[in-house]
């Protein structure tokens, strides 16, 4: 007996010992590792600098006190969901990024203020979960260490990436729209795109604006949204705006992968609202639109809010006539009649054979803003333009309008200026409506030759 218990105590002892071994090695290792900060990065940078000395810039610097680094190539990280359920956005974002990088490098001659330094896109897959996104960020940081990263569309994945970029002091230009992302006190994050609640607000503003023009009054509204964090924030934006104007409303949330929505549509018909603000994802948009049509639900108007859903080319392809007259708020206005916007849209169409959707649009102006920031940094901090704090400074001092930048020309409101939390002060959306099976921008300014359809012609009150 005693022998056996001894064996057992031995077992326990050795377990404790092995855990302690782990702990000790861990302690030593972590101490050792944290003693030398991520030096490798700077080393590689200086290496690139020395290797790629461009003759033009060296000759133009007369003073020896501050030698501006001769940068030939700046890496821009792109972390997007390229695999899994959200790959649809990530893949398009990647296509858009490749296009814009090409434009910047070849048509615009790189970053002029940095001696025409070229941008190099380095891409990593954010996968489907925060862990995968974090892994992607770490991989990108370890292998490339870009000074600026763009990503990662889905909020929790963006948050995971932000933790890495904050630690590494890398500028993160977020294309995740969830409001809370800029409320975390993160220092190096910027977001050009309008946040989620702004989409909800825009949808309501658009409808009210239209109703006013047509002398229609709206008393009752229904907000239905898919229940992801994005959908919820968008809906909240809409709810706040509705409440502001004293309009009664109900809210219904549902999982976007719902199999059937007839009970929800029946619920809506029972409530009989004047307008419906709908925040769908892709899958449910097709289902909802078809079901609403089939159930013969004819409210005055159905306005989509949030980036994807009814007016996306794929949605129109999938839902056909069912999405006619639906609108959607868009973080991007493909029909903005500015010189560069037309050009980029055409280039995108030529290259990929499809209209750029929001996922691409956000990348268009985010990357162009990055370019502007780099130009600015070179001016403000010629000694070390790629230093994160200098870059941050450059971003914050940007004030881009249609007249002075391509980025603003690509942006719905034509104005980009960052608040200290990283959000664009002049954020705004466009509203796109499906008219005769084609998406057209109808608000704030309609495309040439396009009149917004409001109210829905199948609304019983439309003719009377």
């Amino acid at each position, binding site marked *: 007996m005693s022998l056996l218990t001894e064996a057992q105590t031995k077992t326990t002892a050795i377990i404790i010992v092995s855990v302690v071994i782990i702990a000790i090695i861990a302690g030593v290792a972590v101490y050792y590792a944290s003693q030398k900060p991520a030096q490798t990065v700077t080393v590689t940078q200086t290496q690139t600098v020395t290797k790629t000395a461009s003759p033009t810039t060296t000759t133009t610097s007369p003073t020896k006190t501050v030698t501006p680094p001769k940068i030939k190539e700046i890496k821009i990280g792109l972390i997007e969901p390229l695999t*899994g*359920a*959200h*790959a*649809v956005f990530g*893949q398009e974002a990647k296509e858009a990024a490749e296009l814009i990088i090409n434009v910047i490098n070849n048509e615009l001659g790189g970053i002029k203020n940095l001696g025409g330094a070229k941008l190099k896109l380095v891409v990593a897959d954010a996968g489907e979960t925060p862990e995968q996104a974090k892994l992607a960020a770490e991989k990108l940081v370890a292998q490339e260490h870009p000074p600026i990263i763009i990503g990662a569309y889905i909020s929790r994945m963006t948050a995971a990436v932000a933790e890495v970029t904050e630690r590494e002091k890398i500028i993160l230009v977020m294309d995740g729209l969830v409001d809370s992302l800029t409320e975390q006190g993160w220092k190096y994050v910027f977001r050009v795109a309008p946040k989620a609640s702004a989409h909800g607000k825009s949808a309501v503003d658009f409808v009210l604006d239209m109703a006013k023009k047509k002398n229609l009054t709206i008393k009752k509204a229904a907000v239905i949204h898919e*229940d992801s964090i994005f959908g919820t924030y968008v809906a909240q934006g809409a709810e706040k705006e509705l409440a502001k104007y004293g309009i009664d409303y*109900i*809210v*219904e*949330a*549902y*999982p976007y*992968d*719902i*199999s*059937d*929505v*007839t*009970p*929800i549509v*029946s*619920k809506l*018909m*029972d*409530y009989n609202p004047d307008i419906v603000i709908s925040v769908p994802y*892709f*899958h449910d948009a*097709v*289902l909802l639109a*078809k*079901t609403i*049509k*089939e*159930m*013969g639900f004819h409210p005055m108007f159905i306005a989509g809010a949030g980036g994807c859903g009814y007016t996306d080319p*794929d*949605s*129109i*392809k*999938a*839902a*056909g*006539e*069912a999405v006619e007259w639906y609108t959607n708020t868009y973080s991007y206005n493909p029909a903005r009649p500015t010189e560069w916007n037309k050009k980029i849209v055409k280039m995108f169409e030529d290259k990929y054979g499809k209209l750029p959707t929001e996922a691409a649009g956000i990348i268009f102006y985010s990357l162009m803003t990055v370019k502007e920031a780099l130009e600015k940094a070179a001016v403000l901090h010629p000694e070390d333009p790629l230093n994160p704090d200098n870059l941050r400074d450059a971003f914050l001092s940007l004030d881009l309008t249609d007249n002075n930048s391509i980025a603003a020309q690509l942006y719905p409101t034509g104005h980009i200026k960052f608040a200290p939390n990283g959000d664009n002060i002049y954020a705004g959306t466009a509203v796109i409506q499906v008219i005769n099976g084609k998406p057209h921008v109808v608000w704030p300014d309609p495309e040439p030759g396009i009149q917004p359809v409001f109210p829905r012609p199948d609304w019983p009150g439309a003719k009377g």
Partner: protein
Amino acid sequence: MQVISVDPSLLVQNLVNGVFTGLLYSLVALGLALIFGVMDIINFAHGDFVMVGAYLTYVIATTFMIEPSLTAFITMPIFFLLGIVIYKLIIEEVLGAEPLIQIAVTVGLLMVLRNLALMIFHAEPRGVPFTIFTQPIVIGPITIASSRLAAGIVSLVALWLIHVLLTKTKWGIAVRATADDREVAELMGINVKRVYAVTFGLGTALTALAAALIMTFSRADPYLGLLYGLLSWVIVAMGGLGGVIGVLFSGLIIGVIEALGITFVGAGARELFIYLTFFFVLWFRPRGLFGRR
């Protein structure tokens, strides 16, 4: 979230909606019930057959501009053969294996199907932009979407046909005999392996029919299988092996519970209601509502 006071007409309306959804669920689960009942194969990839069926419907309907529900005439034979091929390649190898092995292998199959769809079609949902079912059918205060009505009726007919097939035909007798006692079935001169292959083929073909009906109002996406996989199993578990009748009634129960959950609480609680019901059914009727061997 405001609570809506539910008025009676909405309740009736949504009960009707639930019934039609439930009929379709029964059809989706029928193939699984057949395969599990006859072969004792635990197929976790069932939902993903529906998904593949939805894509096939999409491809055929949009290529040849055929009404999606009618593509079933083309997709069902294709799926029948596909089922037999999958049976021969994979399922036959794990007949009689431990349940865990069957789960692992069919999960592997599910991953292959799902990601193949993702590779080919990407994650964008695909839908057929045309269908003959566009107008509602209004009966008094009740509005029924015609596609759901059609899907419900077709499901009912399919269930009835399978019921007839199983009870009135030679082949059906052979199948039921095999399900009852595989060894003795062999002693009756029944080629059990062939019965299995055909049953798997038929079970798979039924998912194609369900998928064609689903495509009249919904969409195909690579993750559609998640939606129908567990749900089908819940229906099979609740129905027990009570044959077609068991599947029909548990499908209806699930459909109605879902509709009631959405009506009274909200769509976010939909799954909660379905799976809680499932829990209680299993706890208190471990053999299912309609008996099980």
